[in-house]
């Protein structure tokens, strides 16, 4: 029997397969459904801020090749206060709920993180880079020092584990990861979607309302995998792999690269909400065939 359970910052996960932030995550019932019906081992909320945001004009999303997406939702969210009741419902899913926080200042990050803690989130994930929301948005995760400061400020303000979600749109993601580690981060999530765009040649116009957006899905998997590999080589805190994971093979690649767990977003597009159950089964099948019994046996073996 293959056991694919894992643990991250003391949080037990029945599989390494968590829901990524921003995917079907703006309402508690949706998160609960992904947990119960979809089989996610933990769920990350949509990134929440201090104020409600309507986000960008449409199109907010355009399909790219190979089941990928370019999206610019623009951090639409009802604000953390409205999310208290959503989190209560999400928790009914019976799996850990991780609250994702963004802010336009340290103070805002802290405010959201503290609220999420008080609502009972198992951890808070700091969205340090949202390419599609002006200059301020992308600021933190692109600067090593600012990433350090945000993580440190939030770590000093809450008791639940703090994850930092990084962007690969930097010169050296390992440097940012190290800064987060020094600041006391409990885990690193890598990566968020990559800056990208689509132009319609019939009209000559960018398709997305925001003109540019983030590329997610299978296309970014090899890039995300290299990030996880590079980070886990140099950093000791656990890393959660994210980016294009769509099959059991994909997930195993991330674990072999050194990831503690995985997050899944865009894969839902091609494989449906039950992708978490499907990938779990596929992982087990491959591991069974290769004679592996648990994830510890394979974690990081590609190094």
């Amino acid at each position, binding site marked *: 029997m293959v056991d694919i359970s894992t643990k991250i910052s003391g949080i037990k996960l029945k599989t390494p397969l968590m829901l990524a932030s921003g*995917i079907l995550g703006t309402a508690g019932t*949706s*998160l609960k459904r992904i947990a119960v019906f979809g089989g996610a081992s933990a769920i990350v909320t949509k990134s929440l801020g201090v104020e*409600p945001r309507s986000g960008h004009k449409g*199109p*907010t*999303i355009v399909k790219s090749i190979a089941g990928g997406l370019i999206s610019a*939702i623009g951090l639409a969210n009802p604000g953390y206060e409205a999310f208290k009741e959503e989190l209560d419902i999400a928790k009914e899913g019976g799996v850990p709920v991780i609250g994702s926080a963004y802010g336009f200042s340290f103070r805002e990050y802290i405010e959201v993180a503290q609220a999420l803690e008080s609502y009972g989130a198992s951890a808070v994930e700091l969205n340090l880079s949202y390419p599609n929301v002006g200059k301020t948005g992308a600021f933190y995760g692109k600067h090593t020092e600012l990433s350090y400061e945000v993580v440190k400020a939030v770590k000093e303000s809450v008791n639940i584990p703090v994850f930092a979600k990084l962007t690969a749109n930097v010169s050296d993601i390992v440097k940012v990861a190290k800064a987060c580690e020094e600041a006391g981060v409990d885990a690193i999530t890598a990566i968020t979607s990559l800056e990208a765009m689509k132009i319609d040649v019939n009209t000559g116009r960018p398709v997305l309302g925001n003109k540019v957006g983030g590329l997610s899905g299978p296309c970014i998997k090899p890039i995300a995998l290299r990030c996880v590999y590079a980070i886990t080589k140099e950093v000791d805190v656990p890393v959660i792999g994210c980016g294009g994971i769509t099959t059991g093979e994909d997930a195993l690649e991330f674990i072999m690269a050194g990831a503690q767990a995985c997050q899944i977003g865009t894969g839902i597009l091609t494989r449906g909400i039950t992708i978490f159950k499907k990938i779990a089964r596929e992982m087990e099948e491959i591991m069974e065939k290769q004679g592996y019994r648990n994830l510890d046996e394979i974690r990081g073996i590609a190094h």
Partner: protein
Amino acid sequence: MRVTKIKEIIRETERIRTFVFEEKVDALPGQFVMVWIPDVDEKPLSLSKHKGDLTITVLAQGPFTNKMAELKVGDKVGIRGPFGRGFKIIGDNLLLVGGGVGVPPLAALADKAVEEGKNVTAIVGAITASELLFVDRLENIGARVLTCTDDGTAGKKGFTTDLLRDLLQKETFDSCYTCGPEIMMVKVLEQTKAKGIPTQVSMERYVKCGIGICGHCIVDGTGQRVCKEGPVFRDIEVEKITEFGKYRRDASGTKVYFRNR
């Protein structure tokens, strides 16, 4: 995203226009498309014909739909879709209850039902006579059409739900389909449930991605996605949708409660 041109524009009422595009579809009545006006926005709109030239019928009521009303034949728009689950035709005697711009998807359904040899009765309501939609179209395909207006300028004075009550006292149907203001649909469901008539409801929620990934169109209770598992839901599903008739979420995901009318 594919770009097509407007082939024809039909002025249905003061504020409602039908747009026919240079593109063919073969879809289910009840399904919708995302329509992009470059540099403006992209919004969900139901197919008002299920087959042939892609056709939508739009009520000008805000920035996007007003912009649509300004478009001319030959203008380019982008289309994604058709998306979502459409209406399922069950039984032979069908009842359609539509209010305002809820009528277009029902008209598409009527086309398909008649094609399949079904009997169609349609209750069509509007605020005033000039706003009544597709009465001729429905009658031309052989549907029985009962109309009503709030101000009594055409058909019976009153709401579709009043007409429905009268009708269901005399007749019964194999299934019912409703699309329009949510408060209206709540009342339709109450009545058809009491009479044991299976009913399908087409719901509107704030649609962003249209492909079931962003979660903005979610409904509470079931966590279903209007753009994917909907917009058409069966009555047994609607019963579990706790927000039905009570509230919907706006672009930020904030709950907005319906005012009963």
